């Protein structure tokens, strides 16, 4: 036992301690092996892609809000094959829709949640000096860079970017004759295959680190919830991404060397692609929400100065969501011609997944109950997450019921639902995370004033954009149609579409406040104290903002209690960090009401 522990330590900490001396610029900022720097690289890169995705969304909304009118200001910059004179062509519109989703899902939300917080928080929260494989971690970021470049480049190749939807249903995506896009689709596929490697290396790293490198005393049930959710998310990544990679490779072969996996002309099965895609795609949905849930749990518990309500239930809910997430993929395919009996089993498993989600919401409410709620910017975003996730979760029940899914499938109801989960959920979670851990990342506080303006603009504009989409869906407005006015019954909805578009432009403009605040605070923000949020978790005990290579210069910290001991009677203050040893003489037993689950000790 002792030998093994020594080897493990020697291996893991070796990378950290040996490099304490001054490193060159390139090793510090570009090819750094420091997990905190890699997190920042992911942060900047994915915020850039978030912006690009937002611009694409703006163009989509322009076409829907003002169909057939030239794009103002920048309209003349477009080429003849995309938007001659600023008038968006249908093929370009298809590319816009596809690439908006692709950038947002694969290049913005996923790295923002997993790449940024997985890298930044995991070692700090579990008390590890760095990741288990620091160099693999560097590779994880730098593999994703060419993927992003290829995806961007696909706008400039002949035929334009991929235009078969982010789901790339074959055979539209398998045969250039059907979509008019060949090179763009090939680049889309290659880029996602490469990006898969990046996610995979990240997942291997996170899982190994969390399993093997927790500080003494950091037992499974003393792990902070962001780490827990990232651990579970990593498993989803690890096991879902390769499935997609396999499918992408087959689709790539269909597109390039003429195999016929998904091409009915050669007896291939288009439905097989859908199964493979959604077998990845559904866990992917949870990849995009679970880390945000973890971040939000941390912020809510901290800002309500109260232990998280039902810590064990929260962990179990995360795990059961992940497990159930593997058996529900078919609910994306109710109307696809899938075997109806298979549909029934998928419907039941899907509808059951509402339960752990409900548990999480109730536990957040329970955490707020009798709390001492501080409305700081991270807390506002976290509360918005809860409020919006309720809407997104409830609208999901409509689709889970297969018969009700018939009229609303592939309409704007779905668009509303996914944006309530992905924007209202993930993105508010990300904002909560960035504003909460910004002091740890950059040593300065983000401006609370700008943060609040940004928050209120965002929450109002966001609801003005996406809530009416439910109504569009109920009025049978199909998704991904270029010109709703070509259907007579959709013409009365044009006013609503225009309203949504204007709100969307306000929403996008509102994000510029965040961008400004982010970069301004990075250089000119108020200097942050050691533990500005009076948090319990280990990252705030590490000296330095951010801590240097090796994270915990005083040696690996020891952990004595759970992460959410706020307002504990054991402490005179309203928080009790995980790493503070218990006083030699206890203050007496902690009073507990009967029936309360003990947590964290």
């Amino acid at each position, binding site marked *: 036992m002792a030998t093994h522990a020594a080897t493990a330590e020697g291996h893991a900490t070796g990378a950290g301690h040996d490099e304490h001396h001054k490193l060159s610029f390139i090793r510090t900022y570009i090819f750094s092996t420091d997990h905190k720097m890699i997190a920042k690289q992911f942060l900047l890169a994915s915020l850039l892609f978030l912006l690009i995705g937002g611009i694409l969304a703006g163009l989509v909304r322009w076409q829907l809000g003002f169909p057939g009118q030239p794009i103002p200001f920048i309209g003349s910059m477009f080429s003849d094959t995309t938007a001659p004179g600023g008038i968006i062509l249908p093929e370009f519109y298809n590319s816009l829709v596809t690439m908006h989703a692709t950038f947002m899902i694969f290049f913005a939300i996923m790295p923002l949640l997993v790449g940024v917080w997985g890298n930044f928080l995991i070692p700090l929260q579990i008390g590890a000096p760095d990741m288990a494989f620091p160099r693999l971690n560097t590779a994880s970021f730098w593999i994703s860079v060419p993927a992003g470049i290829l995806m961007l480049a696909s706008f400039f190749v002949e035929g334009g970017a991929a235009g078969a939807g982010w789901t790339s249903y074959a055979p539209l995506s398998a045969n250039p004759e059907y979509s008019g896009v060949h090179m763009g689709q090939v680049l889309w596929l290659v880029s996602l295959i490469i990006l898969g490697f990046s996610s995979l290396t990240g997942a291997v790293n996170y899982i190994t680190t969390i399993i093997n490198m927790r500080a003494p005393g950091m037992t499974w049930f003393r792990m902070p919830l962001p780490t827990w959710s990232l651990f579970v998310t990593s498993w989803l990544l690890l096991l879902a991404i390769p499935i997609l990679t396999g499918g992408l490779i087959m689709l790539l072969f269909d597109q390039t060397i003429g195999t016929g996996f998904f091409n009915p002309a050669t007896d291939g099965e288009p439905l097989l692609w859908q199964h493979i895609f959604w077998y990845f795609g559904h866990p992917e949905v949870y990849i995009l929400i679970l880390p945000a849930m973890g971040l939000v749990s941390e912020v809510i518990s901290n800002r309500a100065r109260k232990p998280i309500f*039902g810590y064990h239930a929260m962990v179990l809910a995360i795990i059961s969501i992940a497990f159930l997430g593997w058996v529900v993929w078919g609910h994306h395919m109710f109307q696809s011609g899938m075997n109806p009996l298979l549909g029934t089993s998928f419907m039941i498993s899907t509808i059951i997944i509402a339960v752990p989600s409900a548990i999480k919401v109730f536990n957040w409410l329970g955490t707020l109950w009798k709390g001492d709620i501080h409305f700081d910017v991270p807390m506002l975003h976290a509360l918005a997450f809860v409020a919006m996730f309720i809407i997104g979760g409830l609208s999901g029940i409509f689709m889970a019921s297969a018969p009700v899914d018939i009229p609303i499938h592939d309409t704007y109801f779905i668009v509303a639902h996914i944006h309530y989960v992905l924007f209202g959920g993930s993105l508010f979670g990300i904002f909560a995370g960035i504003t909460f851990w910004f002091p740890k990342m950059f040593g300065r506080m983000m401006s609370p004033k700008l943060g609040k303006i940004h928050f209120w603009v965002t929450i109002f504009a966001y609801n003005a954009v996406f809530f009416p989409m439910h109504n569009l869906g109920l009025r049978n407005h199909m998704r991904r149609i270029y010109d709703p006015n070509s259907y007579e019954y959709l013409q009365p909805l044009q006013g609503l579409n225009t309203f949504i578009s204007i709100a969307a432009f306000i929403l996008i403009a509102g994000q510029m406040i965040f961008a400004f605040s982010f970069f301004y605070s990075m250089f000119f923000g108020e200097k942050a104290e050691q533990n500005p949020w009076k948090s319990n978790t280990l990252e705030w005990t590490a000296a330095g903002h951010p801590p240097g290579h090796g994270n915990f210069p005083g040696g690996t910290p020891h952990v004595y209690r759970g992460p959410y001991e706020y307002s504990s009677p054991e402490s005179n203050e309203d928080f009790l960090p995980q790493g503070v040893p218990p006083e030699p003489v206890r203050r007496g037993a902690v009073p507990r009401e009967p029936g*309360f689950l003990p947590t964290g000790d």
Partner: protein
Amino acid sequence: MENWSWMLDESASSVGPQIDRLYYIILVITGIVFVATEVTLLYFLFKYRHREGHKAEYIHGNTKAEIIWTAIPALIVLAIALMSRGLWAEIKDPANVPADAMRVMLEAKQFEWNLTYPGPDGELRTGDDFTVRNRLDIPLDRPTVLEMTSVDVIHSFFVPDFRLKQDIVPGMAMQMWFQPTRAGVFPIGCAELCGIGHTRMRGTLTVHSPADYQAWVNEQVQGAASAAEPAAPAPATQAQ
């Protein structure tokens, strides 16, 4: 907003009212949950906002509460699932396709719906079949079965007023049946992205009274017959 409503438009097919009923049940349940949770959230935010000298209570959880709020949602969603299950089977189970239905062949291609009707003999795949483009005309008195195929990509046949939607996968023969409940003209759309012309892949579904339907068939058959026999070119062909 004048078009705002949580209500669905009136349905025109036999399964419509059942789907709508399920929709309204879910709408009421989720509506109650929505209001209850959001109001609780806002109430807590107001009640337990930070005040000087106030300290949060040290509560880790409550097993009883956890069990209650696990069990109740579980029972509700299971009830929804069970209700949905029966209706789903009724709509989609191939065994439930009515035997006396009129059968129409639908062939989807980029970007049109081609519908082949049984001619006067009432049988498909016989010499008197006729094909029309983007028009589905059916009689009111009997169910219709669509035998659907696609020749290129996946299309989705969508009739909002009938609560009908079915993807048509190339290489697969798909069936869908429905029974109209009132006469009228209804829009048909394509709900699955199918390429450049996706937005214009539409048609109309006309439900005739039985007599009108017969008249329409006769009109179509005569038109097809006269088109088939060679004749002198009409003067209009010189339009160049």
